C-alpha cells in the first residue's frame, strides 16, 4: 500500500495539505480522455471544466471531494495556501463526483506563477450532509483542508490524487 502514497509524500502533498493516511478507496480522475496520475502535468486549458472523478466504495457510503491548490499564488511564497477550487459532497460510493452535490463551484487551474500542485482529496463522510448543515467557505484563498475536515468530522482522507499545472504561454492560451 505504501507505494501508492509515496508520490504524495515526495510531492509534499502529504505534509502540506493532508496528513499521512492509508488509501482505502480507489479514485481515478480524468480530464476528458486524459487520466490523471499523481504528479502529471495538465495544461490549464485542458482542465477548464471539472474532471470525471470516479471512486470505488459502497453505494451506501457518502464521500466528499475537495480540490485545492497549496501553491497559490506562487510555490515559493504560498501566501494564499490553500486556494480552494472545488468541493463536492454526498458522492455515493462506486459512482463519480457528478453524482454528488457541488458545494463550491469548480474553478479550473489558473496558476499565475510557477508550477502549482492541484490536489484532489476524498473523504468519507460520517453521514449525509443536509442543506444548511454545511456552510461553504466564504472565500477560495486561504482554505485549509485539514481544518475543513476537522470541522466536519471527515477524519483522514481515503484517497488523494494530484497533478501539476503551469501557466501556458500566451500564444497557446485559449
Amino acid at each position, binding site marked *: 500500500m505504501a507505494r501508492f502514497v509515496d508520490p504524495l509524500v515526495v510531492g509534499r502533498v502529504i505534509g502540506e495539505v493532508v496528513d499521512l493516511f492509508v488509501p482505502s478507496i480507489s479514485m481515478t480522475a480524468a480530464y476528458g480522455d486524459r487520466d490523471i*496520475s499523481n504528479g502529471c502535468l495538465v495544461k490549464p486549458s485542458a482542465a477548464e471544466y471539472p474532471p470525471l472523478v470516479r471512486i470505488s466504495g459502497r453505494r451506501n457510503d457518502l464521500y466528499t471531494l475537495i480540490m485545492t491548490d497549496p501553491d497559490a499564488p506562487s510555490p515559493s511564497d504560498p501566501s494564499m495556501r490553500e486556494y480552494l477550487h472545488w468541493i463536492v459532497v454526498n458522492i455515493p460510493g462506486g459512482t463519480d463526483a457528478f453524482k454528488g452535490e457541488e458545494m463550491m463551484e469548480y474553478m479550473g487551474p489558473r496558476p499565475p506563477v510557477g508550477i502549482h500542485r492541484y490536489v484532489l482529496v476524498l473523504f468519507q463522510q460520517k453521514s449525509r450532509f443536509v442543506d444548511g448543515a454545511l456552510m461553504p467557505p466564504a472565500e477560495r484563498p486561504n482554505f485549509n483542508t485539514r481544518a475543513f475536515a476537522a470541522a466536519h468530522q471527515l477524519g483522514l482522507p481515503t484517497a488523494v490524487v494530484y497533478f501539476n499545472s503551469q501557466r501556458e504561454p500566451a500564444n497557446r492560451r485559449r
Partner: protein
Amino acid sequence: MDLKDGGGAERRGAAAAGAAPLSRQGSIYSLTFDELGGGLGKDFGSMNMDELLRSIWTAEESQAMASASGGAAPAAGLQRQGSLTLPRTLSVKTVDEVWRDFEREVSPDAATGGGGGEQQPGRQPTLGEMTLEEFLVRAGVVRENPAAAAAMVAAAAAAPPVAPRSIQTVNNSSIFFGNFGAANDGAGAGAMGFSPVGIGDPTMGNGLMSGVAGIGGGAITVTSVDTSVGTMDSAGKGEGDLSSPMAPVPYPFESVIRGRRSGGNVEKVVERRQRRMIKNRESAARSRARKQAYTMELEAEVQKLKEQNMELQKKQEEMMEMQKRLFPDMQKNQVLEVVNNPYGQKKRCLRRTLTDFIVSEVRELLQSANSANSCGVGAGASCC
C-alpha cells in the same frame, strides 16, 4: 604605491583603463558636460546641484530601462536612490558656483606643488570638458568625509597613508555609529576619499590604501564640502542599498562603491543574495521532488500493470488447462465439437479477446514506461 603619482595621473589612468571602462561604457557618467548638456537638452550652469542630480537620475533611469531588460530596471531605480547623496549646503549651489569653487581651490594647490596639483590646471580647463563623474566626485556629491579630506590635504604632500587612514577610521566610527564594524568602517573610510584610483585597483584591500593616496592629490577639491556631509552620509546609510552587485546595470561607480561599501550595505547585499540562493535551492528541490514523485507514480503504475498482466496470464493458462481437460480431443474432433458444442467457438473467441487484451495491455505498459523514461530525461511536460 607611489604617493606622488596618486593624484591626477592615476585618476586619468583609471578612467581610461582597468575595470572601469567596462562598467562605464554607455554610462552617462562618462560623458562630459558638453556632451551631456546636448543629450539632455539642458543648460547645467544655472542648475543647482539638486536639479542636476535629479536630471542625472532621470537620464540614468531611462538609460537603464533602455539597456537592461525587464527585471534589471527596477534594480537600477533602487540603486539610484542610495547612490548619490548630496550635502545640504551643496544642493542649493548652482553648477557654475561649484565649478568656480573648484577653480579657486586649484590655484593654491598648484602653488603648494602637491601630488595632483601639478596636473590639475592642464587637465580641467573648462567645465564643459569635465566628465560628470569627475564633477560629482569633486563636488563631494558622492559621499566623502570632509574631516578626513581636510586631514588629507594636510598630509597630501608626503604623509604616509597610514596616518590619514587612522584619522578616518576614528572619524568614521563617530559618524556612523551603530552596526558597522570597525573593519568595515576602515574600508569605507579608505575609499571615502573617493579617488577613481579605486576603480582601477583590482584588489579591494589595496583600494583602501590607494584610495587614501589618491586623495592626496585630489583632496583639495573635497574641502569645499562642509561638515554636513557627515549627517547626510549617515542618513544615506540608513536607507541602505548603495547598489546591487547582481544587477547588470551600467553603473559607473559600481566598482568604486563596491570598494567603499559600508558594512551595513555589504550585509544587506549578502543577505539578499543568500535569500535568493535559498529560494533558488528550494525551487530546485521542488523540481526534483516533482520529477521524482512522477517517476514513482509511473513506476507504481508499471508495477500494478505488471501484476495485473501476470494475473491475467495465469488466468488464461488456467482456462486453457480447463479447456484441455474438458475437451481433451478438441484438436482431433474440432468439427464434431463445433457441431456438438456450440459454446466451443465462443470460448475460443473469448480466449482471443483475452489474448488481445493482454497484448494491448503490455503494449500500453511499454509505452508508459517509455514515456516515463523520456520524461525523466527531457522536458517531460505533456506526457501524462
